[in-house]
């Protein structure tokens, strides 16, 4: 038995917004793999919950007419990994979320929960940063779109107002077309592990596969919230897709990241990881794009 004060169940987005407005202290519960564990730990014990789990309209991956890929916020990690649309256009995201926890966690855990908990170590976050994802949010005032760069407001704080919930994650065509990406998770174990640091790199090469037209580098656990390595990205644009550029990225990312000491790893180790993982993920993304490196 969980220590829950009251459970309110929503079967539609409108009902969820109404319930959240009526119970301002309530916590949203989606798949429950964070919230129920925190209830058990006592951190969220005795609270009211608004369950959005039964809102089936928030599940599934679809492609919109303009090529935008729409991932419903309640889509589980399994749903994303096995989605033909993701496998064809966004394989890096499918691979990244296949590293979350274990198989049963990937069956219940949702991408919405993974981004709304505001945790820097979320396996989906660095890849969504590197994909310039857009969050669709619905609240009492209606719908609004939030670029992921404005999403994270601080540790465990995201850009959600009172009675608002995230309903989808959108990846625009210009963000994925022509790009290939690679995600690396560093952890102490191969399963049931939280990332010590995660790095996701997206690369777009020139037609002859020799020049870096664009590169986007996303990190988890390199700062209090997921971040982009903007300095390293700007310096690498227009450079040859070779080992020298990879090495330069490895140096330049150190100007962008601000990791800290924690019981999982020291700051120095994380700086080393940030540098090495960016080089490796960039190299692999170039290879996937057809470049020789």
């Amino acid at each position, binding site marked *: *038995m*969980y*220590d*829950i*004060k*009251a*459970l309110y*169940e929503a079967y539609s987005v409108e009902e969820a917004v109404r319930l959240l407005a009526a119970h301002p202290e309530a916590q949203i*519960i989606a798949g*429950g*793999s964070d919230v*129920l*564990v925190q209830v*058990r*730990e006592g951190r969220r014990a005795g609270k009211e919950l608004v*369950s959005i*789990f*039964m809102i089936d309209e928030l599940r599934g991956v679809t492609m919109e007419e303009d090529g935008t890929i729409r991932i419903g916020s309640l889509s589980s990690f*399994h749903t994303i990994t096995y989605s033909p649309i993701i496998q064809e256009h966004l394989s890096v995201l499918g691979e990244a979320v296949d590293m979350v*926890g*274990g*198989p*049963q*966690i990937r*069956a*219940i855990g949702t991408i919405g929960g993974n981004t709304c908990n505001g945790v820097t170590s979320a396996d989906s976050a660095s890849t969504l940063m590197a994909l310039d994802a857009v969050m669709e949010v619905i609240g009492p005032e209606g719908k609004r779109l939030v670029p992921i760069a404005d999403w994270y407001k601080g540790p465990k704080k995201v850009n959600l107002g009172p009675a608002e919930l995230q309903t989808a994650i959108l990846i625009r065509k210009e963000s994925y077309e022509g790009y290939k990406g690679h995600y690396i998770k560093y952890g102490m174990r*191969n*399963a*049931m592990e939280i990332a010590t640091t995660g790095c996701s790199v997206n690369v777009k090469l020139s037609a002859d596969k020799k020049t870096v037209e664009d590169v986007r580098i996303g990190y988890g656990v390199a700062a209090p919230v997921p971040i982009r390595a903007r300095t390293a990205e700007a310096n690498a644009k227009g450079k040859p897709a070779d080992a020298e550029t990879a090495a330069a990225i490895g140096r330049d990312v150190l100007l962008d990241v601000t990791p800290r000491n924690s019981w999982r790893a020291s700051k120095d180790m994380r700086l080393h990881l940030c540098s090495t993982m960016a080089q490796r993920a960039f190299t692999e993304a170039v290879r996937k794009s057809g470049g020789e490196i």
Partner: protein
Amino acid sequence: MEDRQYKMVHCYVNGKERAAMVDVRSSLTDMLRNEFGLTSVKKGCEVGECGACAVIIDGDCYDSCIYLAVWAEGKHITTLEGLEGPNGELSDIQQAFVDETAIQCGFCSPGFMLEAHHVLKPGVIYTDDELRKKLSGHLCRCTGYENIMRAVKKTMYQRAGMEMPVEEDRIPLSVPIEDGKVVL
């Protein structure tokens, strides 16, 4: 809590239509054990780490300890009891666990067997690494996993209608000894 909240939940458990009035604070583990007497669903870590409470819901494997009972409404749920034959005959995966001594204390066994049953599609052969990843949501503190892996692999080859390849590095149960030294 003074105002207890209850809800009627209708679902299909091991092929049978069932209904129960549950406290909304119940986990699915609580409902399956307490309302339906399905004690193969173990209460292990209760935070979704050990896999002892795993059940199959609508075709995927979930930890029932971090699944609210009220979410089971309308779902098709399979527990280990559902794998047995009509007269309690063991299923292939259960028999393989017996034959390969893949059980010591037995607490992780229902979850492991159910997950293996779910993972092993007829005719599909996985590498050891793939199998380890697919079973990685289950913890066993007794066996060291070797015999569990062997039982799962045996069932995988059986379901594919193939002979299981001989494991060359397997240490034989009776060790030949010559002149006081082990001959391998």
